[in-house]
């Protein structure tokens, strides 16, 4: 594992909201080809961690370093979300954030925005180059839809999709930005076991076929244990454990954290 290229390196990330420390010096690494997972009880600070990495929040302390293959290292702290995405880091949202009044296909086409370049004037003139680019966007987006199994819904409004399909659409939209690292925030939330199983396959397929590394937040332990390695565990803003699925399963701290939660639920 050590010889794999390190893509994302987070060192001592801390995020304060007023007096509240939501994330407390968490460090984490994602390597090429990995499906890493970040788990933990509700309110552990996982989503805040994502938001810091993707530029929605500016972290209070710590470093977020991105090492794209063949390019210089970039520090992501304080960069705008769209810059982060341009660098090859895409995400989905825990509470689905699609563009409801756009069609399914258009949702994915938005993802292509930062990889294409027709400006206002060229769009008005609509030259051959622009038309070709436009058609290319459509084709690429459609291919992505087919990949996540939504090809037939291309011209539906995204708000009319069933829940599980909306989650998959979010993944397709994120993929459209050509990332090398995909951050999935609870992709299986609200899915039934069959949908979860399909998602399981989809994530593996993305990892293998597209050579995209994945970092996911998840509650569904079965899914996490099946596909991810390594796993990081957070509780109350702190990282309490990391390691292979087996190591995590046997970690007393993790058991305690989860048992505590399960009694609540």
């Amino acid at each position, binding site marked *: 594992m050590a010889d794999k290229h390190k893509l994302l390196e987070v060192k001592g990330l801390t995020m304060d909201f007023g007096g509240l420390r939501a994330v407390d010096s968490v460090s984490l690494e994602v390597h090429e080809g990995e499906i890493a997972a970040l788990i933990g009880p509700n309110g552990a600070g996982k989503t805040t961690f994502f938001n810091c990495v*993707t530029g*929605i929040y500016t972290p209070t302390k710590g470093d977020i370093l991105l090492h794209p293959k063949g390019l210089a290292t970039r520090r992501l702290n304080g960069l*705008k*979300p*769209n810059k982060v*995405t*341009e660098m090859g880091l*895409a*995400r989905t*949202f825990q509470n689905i*954030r*699609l*563009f*409801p*009044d*756009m*069609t399914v*296909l*258009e949702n994915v*086409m*938005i*993802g292509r*925005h*930062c*990889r*294409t370049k*027709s*400006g*206002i004037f060229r*769009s*008005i003139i*609509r030259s051959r180059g*622009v038309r070709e*680019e*436009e058609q290319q*966007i*459509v*084709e690429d987006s*459609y291919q992505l839809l*087919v990949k996540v199994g939504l*090809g*037939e819904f*291309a*011209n*539906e*409004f995204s708000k*009319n*999709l*069933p829940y599980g399909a909306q989650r998959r659409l979010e993944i397709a*939209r*994120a993929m*459209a*930005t050509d990332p090398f690292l995909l951050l999935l925030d609870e992709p299986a939330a609200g899915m039934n076991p069959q949908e979860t199983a399909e998602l399981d396959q989809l994530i593996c397929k993305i990892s293998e076929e597209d050579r995209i590394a994945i970092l996911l937040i998840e509650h569904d332990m079965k899914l996490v244990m099946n596909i991810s390695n390594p796993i990081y565990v957070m509780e109350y803003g702190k990282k309490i454990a990391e390691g292979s699925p087996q190591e995590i399963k046997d970690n007393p701290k993790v058991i305690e954290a989860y048992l505590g939660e399960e009694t609540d639920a």
Partner: protein
Amino acid sequence: MLKEFRQSLLVSIWFVFLTFPLMVVRVNTTESIVEWRWMSLVWVAVASFFLSYLWRYMLARQQAKKKVEEEGVQQLSKAQLLLEDMTFRYKAMGVLLAFSLVFPWIFDTYQSTIMISALIYVVLGLGLNISVGLAGLLDLGYVAFFAVGAYSYALINHHFDFGFWACLPVGGVLGCLFGVILGFPILRLRGDYLAIVTLGFGMIIKVVLENWNEFSFGPSGIANIDRPGLFGIDMNIDGSTTYIYYIMVAMVVFTILITMRLRNSRIGRAWIALREDEIACVAMGIDMARTKLSAYALGAFWAGMVGVLFAAKTTFINPASFTFMESAIILSIVVLGGMGSILGVILGAFILILLPEYLRAFSEYRMLAFGAAMVLMMIFRPQGIISNIRQKYEYKGLKEEADNG
């Protein structure tokens, strides 16, 4: 049945109470006369009684419709299906264009002037539609850019004697430039803050025009602005009106063409995505500041350009023409027509500008009706008269699907 009746009765009593002092009593303190207008009370009682039935029925219908939509069934009305039909669309467009071309020959000059006003509002509506309808940036000071265009022509014409055609692009570019300058600091603001700041800008521009005599000639305005020229031909008022009419038709066609292309382009999609969800939009790699600025400035461009024509048409402008009410009228055109929908905005402009022109007797009730229509539209038909139809795309898979199925 009885419950409904009781509810309506309560509403009726409530409105009688509510409107009593304002509708019934009119008091003249200097002559110590109180005028009691009891008849209006009866009207209020009867009207609110029946309207409350209608209100409840419409609300229930709205709820039912929402439910159907939530179940994922997409409903397209017959009119929409008709509009989707391309051959019908082309035919309709052809007929409309032909009609608009012969219009000044069928009707008199007065009708043409009215039509010019309506067309000016069409362009304004389409321009505002870019920022409000597509990008979701509520601009309550849109008329400021209209003023920029009108004054840029009036002043350039006055000082340097440049003609209409030279100033037309200048007005547009200046409008656009103002959009960028004003937009730059304020576009980071959240939606509702943006509304109040743009409202403030609208007022500031008017105040500046009123006060800065050396620059704008103050409230007395600028008179004797040249009408558009045509190779130096001397035209009388009829000829000139017809000429302006054709310029305006061309401008509307031009605006439609360009907004249509923009809407269905990479930029247009980014605007719509921004309106739908800002956070998801930036997370997908779209530069929010630039996208907002481009929508705001492009909207301003149209206002500036049509402002030039406005000045050329009226030949006289003063700051009094650029009040908040104008912004509100343009906004209601966009809202009533259907935010984001080009056809809707055009229809909205015609209804809102032509209807009061022909129903002069009711002109006092014009603004009252505007206000009520804005509220009712938002509640019962938020998508406007004609809702926005998304473009369908052709892709390779489509053909395969058809072959297989």
